């Protein structure tokens, strides 16, 4: 409609522009903010990964040297494997648990507000505090978890101190910290399902499991998919858990790409190497983000 008018009347576009001036003004403000605070750092990071810089003199272009350096690093394959394993485990644990809790909360009829608050509570704890709290829980001596295992007459675990349990211990912390957010989002999705669908299913004699399978899951399919992709993007950037709990150890068992990136930039003073790792991680995440955009576009259509 607008294009038709514009074609016939050249002044139409100007009129339309003027009519939307306020909107463009607000849009400009947002775009400028994004440009300076989001896109500019990304562009700088991109350039940095091809440069050697000391932040004093002009940066020197080194082509793919930074990439070569980090790829030849013996911790590089470990970092990617650990990141992939962390993401996979976080999906197994962290994806299913909040959904199940949301399902249970949705079925409850009493004290729902209180329970929602209880589930959401850990999110309010600053991540550093939560992580340090778990450091104490994981203590192989008098730590809470080993005390519990002791009560159940089970052998104590080394938790963070063993190559076989360190990574999953980090996944548990991460899941615990993010449980509340996931649960609330699933709960919102569950509550948007029209109740007549359940009533119809019940009339047809469907039990709880069949109702979940035939009504809940198809109705929340899209949000489940979007959450899956968002979680992949978030967990692949895991940093604070290995940084605060294990320092990448034992024996590189918890070195992640983001942690290695931090080491390059701030321990080794090699910002180019850190930038190169960051760019590689970003490219991988962009694939998932593209899928996410595709999925949300399908949703809009």
């Amino acid at each position, binding site marked *: 409609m607008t294009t038709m008018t514009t074609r016939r009347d050249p002044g139409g576009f100007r009129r339309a522009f003027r009519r939307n*001036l*306020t909107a*463009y*003004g*607000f849009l*400009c*403000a947002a775009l*400028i*903010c994004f*440009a*300076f605070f989001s896109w*500019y750092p990304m562009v700088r990071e991109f350039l940095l990964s091809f440069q050697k810089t*000391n*932040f*004093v*003199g002009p940066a020197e272009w080194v082509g793919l040297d930074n990439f*070569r*350096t980090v790829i*030849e*690093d*013996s*911790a590089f394959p470990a970092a990617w494997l650990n990141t992939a394993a962390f993401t996979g485990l976080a999906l197994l644990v962290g994806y299913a648990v909040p959904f199940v809790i949301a399902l249970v909360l949705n079925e409850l009829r009493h004290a729902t507000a209180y329970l929602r608050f209880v589930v959401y509570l850990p999110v309010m704890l600053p991540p550093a505090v939560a992580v340090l709290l778990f450091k104490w829980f994981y*203590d*192989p*001596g*008098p730590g809470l978890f080993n005390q519990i295992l002791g009560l159940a007459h089970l052998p104590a675990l*080394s938790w*963070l*101190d*063993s*190559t076989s349990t360190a990574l999953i211990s980090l996944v548990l912390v991460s899941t615990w910290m993010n449980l509340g957010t996931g649960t609330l989002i699933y709960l919102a999705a569950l509550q948007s399902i029209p109740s007549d669908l359940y009533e119809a299913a019940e009339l047809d004699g469907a039990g709880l499991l069949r109702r979940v399978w035939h009504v809940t899951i198809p109705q929340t399919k899209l949000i489940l998919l979007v959450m899956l992709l968002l979680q992949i993007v978030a967990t692949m950037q895991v940093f604070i858990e290995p940084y605060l*709990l*294990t*320092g*990448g*150890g*034992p*024996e*590189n068992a918890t070195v992640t790409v983001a942690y290695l990136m931090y*080491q390059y*930039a*701030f*321990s*080794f*003073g090699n*910002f180019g190497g850190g930038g190169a790792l960051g760019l590689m991680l970003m490219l991988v995440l962009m694939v998932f983000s593209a899928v996410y955009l595709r999925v949300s576009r399908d949703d809009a259509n």
Partner: protein
Amino acid sequence: MKPRNLAILLTAGLALAAAGCGGSGNTPGAGSSPAGPAAADAPVTISVGCQPPKSNPKERAQWDADVAAFQKLHPNITIESKDAFPCIVPETFQAKLAGGEMEDLFYVYYTDVRKIIASGQAADITPYASTLTTLKDMRPDVISVFKEGEKLYGVPRTNYGTGLVYNRKLFTQAGLDPDAPPKTWAEVQAAAKKIAALGPGYVGYGEYSAGNTGGWHFTSSLYGRGGDMVTPDGKKAAFNSPEGKAVLENLKQMRWTDDSMGTKQLLRWEDLMRMMGSGRLGMMIGAPDVVQAVNNDFKGKFEDYGVTSLPEATYSLSGGDGYMFNPKATPEQIKAGLLWLEYRFLTPGQGQFDYERAKNDGLPVGLPATDLYGATAPGQKINELRTQFATVPVDHFKPYVDGTANVQFKLEPPKAQEIYAILDTAMSAVLTRQDANIDQLLSDAEKKVDTMLARSS
């Protein structure tokens, strides 16, 4: 009309603000004047880092008094003090440099000096070194921390070699004589066993193995045993040696056979400090500054701790801190900065060595934490003053002072942090896995360090 105007204003305002932000970030060498010839007494302003923070009122007042006195002596020099705690954070260091916010005279740990020189992030102060009259008396091994070839890039403030920090109270509790601390690693093992036997939660000997601190302490132990981290030309790893093996064997023995190192591993800097402060840790590798940190920040008490020299050591990894100059500082600023450093940090009886004032202010005096001059005249003077005005039990640190008299300080290896990160693996393996194969761990680490050094040369 109104909303439109508002929108225009908003947009313009944001654009201006954003442009302002970007602009200030790119201003080169903020605060410095352009280089060039100037009269000897032309006014010069230098910003100096590491003024004690407000939370440390007595030390801050001393600093401020010294600034005032110094400026009276040199009316053309203005010192702009910048406080921060801690004085250097690797994360903000690069950002401050990139943003032109770095002080003209900035504070560094020895650990970072090599990296900063290699990246060209400090000014070459060789042409102005003659300004420092105290330089000729300084220990050559100390000043060499800030040297690359013949060029000088900074000035030390404190210096110490690593020793063995121990908890005297626990020694007594475990039936050990705190005045006769261990002299050999075998004695360390025996003492650690006795302390661990005090009960659950007591750790005889603590060691790092995460966040690059494991590799750092491995280096310390290795130097003590006479080993080397890299070959003299700095191109190959040299720690896969009998000495390197002995370091790990000793830890393996204490961790798994004696069970005297506690169950919790992957410890980092603050972990051992906290354990020392809480009175549950018997011994750790560390310099007298560890006792200072344990007393100041981790609730320990000076009188409970002692320091002795590293067992069986002829060499020890040196640690400490100092100041370097912003590469954008002018010659006048560098000269003025050196005058200030000499006044505040390098003259016996003055500034940091004004032990009389420190005692009157109720600050601890007596820790052998700063050895810049060795046995030269200023060194002797400083030691005399320190003993004269001591407020902490000097005898508790006598084994360290006596033992380290013949111990040579040794610098960190090139690419220290990268090497430490690689050796964290070996340290964490020995401390967390009973079946760790020491030969394998050392040869793996050697290969990795060789590759890394070959790549960077």
